[in-house]
C-alpha cells in the first residue's frame, strides 16, 4: 500500500515547530499538516521569508512533505475563536490570511492549502453568507491556481459548509475549477455523512487533495485517538489506495497536544497495522499496476458524477478553456449556448474515462452547472439546436441533471432519427423514463440498425416476454430472407425464451 501518513502540527501545540518536526520525522511520518499559528510560522511576524525558507530546508532535510492548514483558533482575533471567517463583515482579513497561506505554501512546496467556511455569524443571513463564501473562495482559488498549489476546502461539522453535499454545491457554484479541491476529514464522514466512510472516499476521490484522519463516533464531532471511536479503518485505507490517492493522510488530533509524542507514536503504529490488514487487497492491485481512473469501479451503465467527469478532464490540454467556461456558466447560465458547441474544438475528442470522450464529458459538466430551474429548458434548447455530437452529449448527461422525467421527449426525438449515435445514446440510464412500449420499440430498432445492445441500460432486467415476442418476429423475417439476427439479439432472445417459457 502506497499511503503516506502525516500528522497535524496543531496536535503539537506545546512544542516548538522545529522540535515537533524532528519528533514526527523520527517516528517515521512522511509529512506534516502545518497549521500556521502565532507560535508555528506566524505569517504576521517579521522575517517571514527567511523563516519560510529555513523551514523549507528543514522539511527537506527531514524528508517530510507538507500541507498548509489555516484553522488556527486565535491567530486573527485574540477574543473570538476562528474569527473573522470568509462570512464575516471583516472577511477581507481572512482572505488576506488565506492568500498569505497560499504564498507560504507555494514557497514551501506544499501539496495543498486547506481551509473551511467557518460558522455563519447570526447577523449574516444565509444568502449573504453564501455569496461571500463563493466570492472569497473564487479569489482564493484564482491565487492558488496561479501559485500552483491546490485549495483543499474542508467541510467541517457545525460550520456553514459541513458535509460533502455542501462542498459539491460550492464547487459547482465556483465553476468546478481544477485548483479547488477537497480536504476530507474521515472522522467527519463518520460523524455526519449519510454514506459509510469508505464510500465517501470513493465518491470524493477525484477531487481529494488532502486527507485528515482520526477516530470518531456517529453524531459527535470529537476527534478521538484510533480505537476510541467507531471507524473500521482497513476498508477506508483500502478505498484511499484503490482510488489512487497520493497525498498525505494526516492525523488530526488537536486536543492531544499534552501527550503529543506518545499519541503520534501510537497513531502511526495503529495506521500501519490497519494498512497491513487491508494488505490482501493490496496484492490484487499490485497485479494491475497504474493509477486507476476515477469512476472505473462504478457499475456499468451508471453515469459518472459531474465532479468525476471534471476530474477526468484535468489532463486535457485546453489552455484553461473549460475552467473559464464553467466559471462563466456559473455566473450566467445563458452563455452556455455559445460555449456548448465549442467544447469539442477546445477539449478534443480523446477518451478520458471508459465510454466518455473529452467533448461529451466537458459538455456534461457544462450542463451540470445549470441551476435547477434552468436545466430542463436549457437542455432542451441545446438539444434542439445542437449538431449530432451536441445532441448526443445532452442525451448522455440527462441522468445528471435535475430535470426528473421532463426531458423524456428528447429521447423520443432521438429514437425517431435514423442516426445510430443518437439512438444508442437515448438508451442509457435516462431511458428508465421511457414507457415499456416505447422502450421495446427502441430496443428492436437497435437490432434493425445494427447497434450493439450493450448500449441499452438495464436490458437484462427490463427485457420482458413482449420484447421476446417482438424479437422472435424479427428473427422469423430474417430467416425468411435468409439472414440471421445479430449475435447479441439472438442470445437475448434465447435467454428470454428459456426464462419466460415461450
Amino acid at each position: 500500500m502506497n499511503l503516506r501518513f502525516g500528522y497535524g502540527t496543531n496536535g503539537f501545540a506545546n512544542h516548538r515547530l522545529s522540535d515537533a518536526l524532528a519528533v514526527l520525522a523520527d517516528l517515521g511520518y512522511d509529512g506534516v499538516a502545518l497549521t500556521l499559528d502565532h507560535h508555528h510560522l506566524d505569517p504576521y511576524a517579521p522575517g517571514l521569508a527567511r523563516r519560510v525558507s529555513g523551514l523549507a530546508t528543514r522539511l527537506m532535510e527531514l524528508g517530510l512533505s507538507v500541507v498548509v492548514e489555516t484553522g488556527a483558533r486565535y491567530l486573527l482575533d485574540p477574543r473570538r475563536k476562528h474569527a473573522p471567517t470568509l462570512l464575516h463583515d471583516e472577511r477581507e482579513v481572512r482572505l488576506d490570511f488565506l492568500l498569505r497561506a497560499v504564498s507560504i505554501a507555494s514557497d514551501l512546496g506544499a501539496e495543498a492549502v486547506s481551509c473551511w467556511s467557518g460558522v455563519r455569524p447570526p447577523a449574516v443571513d444565509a444568502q449573504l453568507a453564501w455569496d461571500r463564501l463563493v466570492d472569497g473562495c473564487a479569489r482564493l482559488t484564482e491565487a492558488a491556481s496561479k501559485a500552483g498549489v491546490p485549495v483543499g476546502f474542508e467541510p467541517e461539522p457545525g460550520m456553514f459548509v459541513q458535509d460533502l453535499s455542501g462542498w459539491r454545491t460550492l464547487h459547482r457554484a465556483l465553476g468546478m475549477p481544477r485548483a479547488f479541491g477537497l480536504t476530507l476529514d474521515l472522522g467527519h464522514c463518520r460523524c455526519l455523512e449519510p454514506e459509510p466512510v469508505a464510500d465517501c472516499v470513493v465518491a470524493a476521490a477525484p477531487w481529494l487533495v488532502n486527507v485528515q484522519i482520526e477516530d470518531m463516533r456517529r453524531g459527535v464531532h470529537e476527534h478521538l485517538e484510533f480505537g476510541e471511536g467507531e471507524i473500521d479503518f482497513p476498508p477506508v485505507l483500502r478505498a484511499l489506495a484503490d482510488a489512487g490517492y497520493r497525498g498525505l493522510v494526516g492525523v488530526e488530533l488537536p486536543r492531544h497536544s499534552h501527550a503529543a509524542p506518545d499519541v503520534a507514536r501510537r497513531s502511526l503504529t495503529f495506521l500501519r497495522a490497519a494498512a497491513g490488514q487491508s494488505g490482501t487487497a493490496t496484492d490484487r492491485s499490485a497485479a494491475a499496476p497504474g493509477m486507476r481512473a476515477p469512476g472505473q469501479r462504478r457499475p456499468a451503465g451508471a453515469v459518472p458524477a459531474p465532479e468525476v467527469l471534471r476530474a477526468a478532464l484535468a489532463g486535457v490540454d485546453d489552455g484553461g478553456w473549460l475552467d473559464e467556461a464553467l466559471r462563466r456558466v456559473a455566473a450566467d447560465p445563458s452563455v452556455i449556448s455559445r460555449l456548448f458547441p465549442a467544447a469539442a474544438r477546445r477539449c478534443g475528442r480523446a477518451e478520458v474515462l471508459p465510454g466518455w470522450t473529452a467533448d461529451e464529458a466537458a459538455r456534461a459538466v457544462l450542463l451540470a452547472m445549470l441551476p435547477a430551474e434552468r436545466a430542463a429548458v436549457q437542455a432542451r434548447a441545446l438539444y434542439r439546436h445542437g449538431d449530432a455530437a451536441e445532441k448526443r452529449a445532452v442525451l448522455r448527461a440527462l441522468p445528471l441533471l435535475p430535470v426528473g422525467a421532463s426531458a423524456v421527449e428528447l429521447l423520443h426525438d432521438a429514437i425517431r432519427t435514423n442516426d445510430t449515435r443518437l439512438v444508442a445514446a437515448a438508451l442509457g440510464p435516462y431511458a428508465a423514463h421511457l414507457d415499456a412500449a416505447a422502450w421495446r420499440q427502441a430496443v428492436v430498432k437497435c437490432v434493425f440498425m445494427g447497434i450493439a445492445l450493450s448500449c441499452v441500460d438495464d436490458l437484462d432486467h427490463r427485457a420482458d416476454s413482449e420484447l421476446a415476442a417482438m424479437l422472435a418476429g424479427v428473427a422469423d423475417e430474417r430467416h425468411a430472407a435468409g439472414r440471421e439476427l445479430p449475435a447479441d439479439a439472438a442470445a437475448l432472445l434465447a435467454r428470454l425464451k428459456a426464462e419466460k417459457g415461450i
Partner: protein
Amino acid sequence: MRIFDPHVHMTSRTTDDYEAMAAAGVRAVVEPAFWLGQPRTSPGSFADYFDALIGWEPFRAGQFGIRHHATIALNPKEANDPRCREVLELVPRYLDKDAVVAVGEIGYDSMTPLEDIAFAAQLALAVEFDLPALVHTPHRDKVRGTQRSLDVVKESGIDPGRVVIDHLNEVTVELVRDTGCWLGFSIYPDTKMSPPRMVELLRRHGTERMLVNSAADWGRSDPLLTRRTGEAMLAAGFGADDVDRVLWRNPVEFYGQSGRLDLSDADSPADFAGNSIKRGGA
C-alpha cells in the same frame, strides 16, 4: 487520387452517388447551404435544412467513409423573399458548429437591394466568427455580378485570402485572379465549366488558389466530374502532385482556415471499403 470536393449538395444525392464518389477517391466534401430548387416559405424549413447539413448528412457521408462539412448562410435567391428574412437571425447559431467551415453560399443572384443587405451582413458574420466565406456568382449578368461581389468583399474588410469566388469561367477568371481571393470552378456536364476547359484554365493561370468542385445538386450534374478533371489534367501532362494540389491540398488549405476541418484518418492512402459503416456509426 484523393479528392476533396469543396462544393457539392449531397442532400440532393443518393447513396449510389456516395458509393461512386468514394470509389472514385472522394474522401471529403463541403456542402454549402443553398436553395432547394423549390422556394422555401418559412425560416423553419431553413432550420431543418441546416440541421440536416450538420447532423444527418455527415452521418450518411460517414457510412461511405467520406468526411462531410458544411457552410451555412441565407442564399442570395431566397434573400429576396421577405418570408425568409428571419433566416439571417438563425445563421449565427449554426456558425458555432464544429462541422461548419465557412459562411456560404452568399453573394448575388439578381443584384437587388435585399441581396446587398444579406451579402454584407453575412460577410460581417464571417469576420465575427472568424470563418472563411464562400461567394456564389450569379448566372445572369455574371461579369458585373462578379465585379460587384469583389467590391462588396473589399468593403467588408475580410481578408481576401479567406474568400472564394465561385462558379468562375473563362470570362470572369481574370477579374478575380489578382485580388487575393480564391477561385472556384464548378464542373458541369453541359453548362458552367467542363474538364477540358478547366484544364486549359489551370494551364494558363496555374494551380495556386484554384478550387475545382462538382457543385452537384438536384439539377443535371455529376459528382464525379472532380475525378474526371483530375484525369484530364493527367492526360494533358500535369503531374500527380499538381492534381493532388488542386483536388486535395487547395481545398484543405482554404477551409482549413476555419480551424474546424476534421480530416483525421481521411487523408491517409488507405481504402475505406469494408469499414465504412463502423466509421459512420462511431
